[in-house]
């Protein structure tokens, strides 16, 4: 492990491969990040040396597996500045974490006439759970409007968040606009009216320093695979008192304290939410990813990703026929864009032929596409292993696409 930003690309075996005769330029980290050798080896070592079920048996392997699993929880807790490791609940990913809050907390606490507040820039995973729980409870879903540049309109937030608000759900960083949202300010408004603040950290936790105490969140959900960890592992962090007043979602093994024929009591947080055999290898891999990112330094990664995002925005915006979306700066390390007269899927296909991997589509943000008045967009997203030469390749691919479609 080299553990410096400048040379970290060599830690990622997949980035050495070619696509259609070109060295791969991977610009789809907002969808999923690539994995450094340290993560791949931690998972392999776990399976080769310590594989056993956790919290159950007394043999050596079970002790090792449990120590690795709980060690990963401690690493994640330190990574986000949680007060206690028990506040870290392992999930499958951001979607599951947000659904847990909707079903375990909101379904229990919302009453008819209560209001849930979110924004039109949310990923479907931070929208549909609230739509559903509002439908079930008779609560009303309301939206903070966006300013024309794709940032949160704080005046709208102040109007929408009021005495009826019980829960505010907002992403910390938009997966399309690149907007860095003012979570602390919104959380203050939410807490002033006694509402709970839920933060979708899928795009922010991998790319920004996260201190949950300063963030002002009551819940924060994020995914391991977008931060160099394996797929299928994620985290729901919550303040202990909020997690304690939340119902379990999955009933079964591991999540109980005492069971009789007719009833059961629940284990303490976080076991209460981790019914069934957890994704132990995934947690171990996530712990290794946290170690890797920490060794490089989240401050450096945050500055690097923002710089690439802002540079890519400027460079793409200067190409005739290219429309870019969201604020120029500050922004996270991703840029959504369109080429005039060329569908984003065709753009992504031509990029692929040039070895440049980007995403095209609605990015699980159909209401945001409606707000932007587009069907879909292309999106380039950056991470620690990208550099300015990748932006050169991105711009070259744009020019090649325009030539190819005769624009």
């Amino acid at each position, binding site marked *: 492990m080299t553990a410096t930003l400048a040379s970290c690309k060599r830690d990622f075996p997949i980035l050495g491969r070619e696509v*259609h005769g070109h060295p791969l330029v991977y610009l789809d980290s907002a969808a999923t990040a690539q994995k450094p050798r340290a993560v791949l080896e931690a998972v392999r070592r776990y399976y080769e040396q310590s594989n056993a079920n956790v919290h159950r048996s007394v043999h050596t392997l079970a002790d090792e597996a449990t120590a690795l699993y709980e060690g990963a929880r401690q690493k994640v807790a330190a990574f986000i500045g949680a007060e206690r490791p028990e506040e870290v609940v392992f999930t499958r990913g951001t979607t599951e974490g947000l659904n847990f809050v909707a079903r375990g907390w909101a379904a229990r606490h919302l009453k008819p006439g209560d209001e849930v507040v979110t924004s039109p820039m949310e990923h479907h995973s931070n929208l549909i759970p609230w739509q559903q729980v509002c439908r079930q409870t008779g609560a009303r879903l309301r939206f903070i409007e966006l300013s024309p540049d794709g940032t949160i309109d704080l005046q709208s937030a102040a109007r929408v968040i009021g005495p009826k608000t019980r829960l505010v759900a907002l992403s910390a960083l938009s997966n399309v606009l690149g907007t860095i949202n003012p979570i602390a300010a919104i959380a203050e408004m939410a807490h002033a009216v006694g509402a709970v603040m839920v933060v979708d950290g899928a795009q922010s936790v991998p790319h920004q320093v996260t201190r949950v105490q300063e963030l002002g969140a009551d819940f924060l959900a994020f995914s391991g695979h977008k931060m160099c960890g394996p797929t299928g592992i994620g985290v729901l962090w919550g303040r202990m008192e909020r997690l304690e007043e939340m119902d379990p979602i999955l009933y079964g093994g591991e999540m109980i304290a005492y069971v009789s024929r007719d009833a059961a009591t629940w284990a303490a947080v976080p076991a209460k939410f981790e019914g069934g055999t957890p994704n132990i290898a995934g947690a171990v891999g996530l712990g290794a990813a946290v170690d890797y990112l920490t060794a490089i330094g989240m401050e450096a990664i945050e500055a690097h990703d923002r710089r690439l995002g802002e540079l890519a925005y400027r460079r793409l915006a200067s190409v005739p026929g290219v429309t870019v979306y969201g604020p120029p700066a500050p922004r996270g390390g991703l840029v959504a864009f369109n080429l005039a007269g060329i*569908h984003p*899927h*065709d753009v992504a296909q031509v990029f692929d032929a*040039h*070895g440049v991997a980007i995403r095209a589509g609605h990015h699980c943000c159909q209401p945001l596409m409606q707000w932007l008045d587009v069907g879909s967009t292309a999106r380039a997203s950056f991470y620690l292993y990208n550099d300015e030469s990748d932006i050169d390749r991105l711009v070259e691919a744009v020019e090649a696409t325009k030539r190819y*479609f005769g624009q």
Partner: protein
Amino acid sequence: MSTDDSLEALYRETILDHNRSPRNRGQLPDATATVGLLNPTCGDQIRLDVKVVDQRVVDIRFTGHGCAISMASASMMTEAVKGKTVEEALGLARDFKRFLTGERPQHDLGELEALSGVSRYPSRVKCATLAHNALEQALSGSPPNPAGDA
């Protein structure tokens, strides 16, 4: 596959031409059937207007937005089925969808065979079949068989 080979396999000149200059684009005020379809994975949309007289497709128009593959496929399909009987048109749609999964077509698909490269890109098959699904729905009055959706 090199850059050029991989693109040529997918975007034949015929496709680029139909994408640039779509045929039968627009709406039919006297349509006997109108179908709107959406490809939820990419947001592509098509509206197909069909005028059937005496079991024959006498006119057909489409509007919508989508990638070059879906728009060219719609354009070529409208040219291929105009003047055909309903039965022939349905046969063509089904044959085309089989063709995209790598099977040999039973009939001459004409220009639509330019879309053969799509069969190597599973993520793009839905783009190429959108208009054909709309046609099946318009002519049979019921949603197409999802099994044929590839």
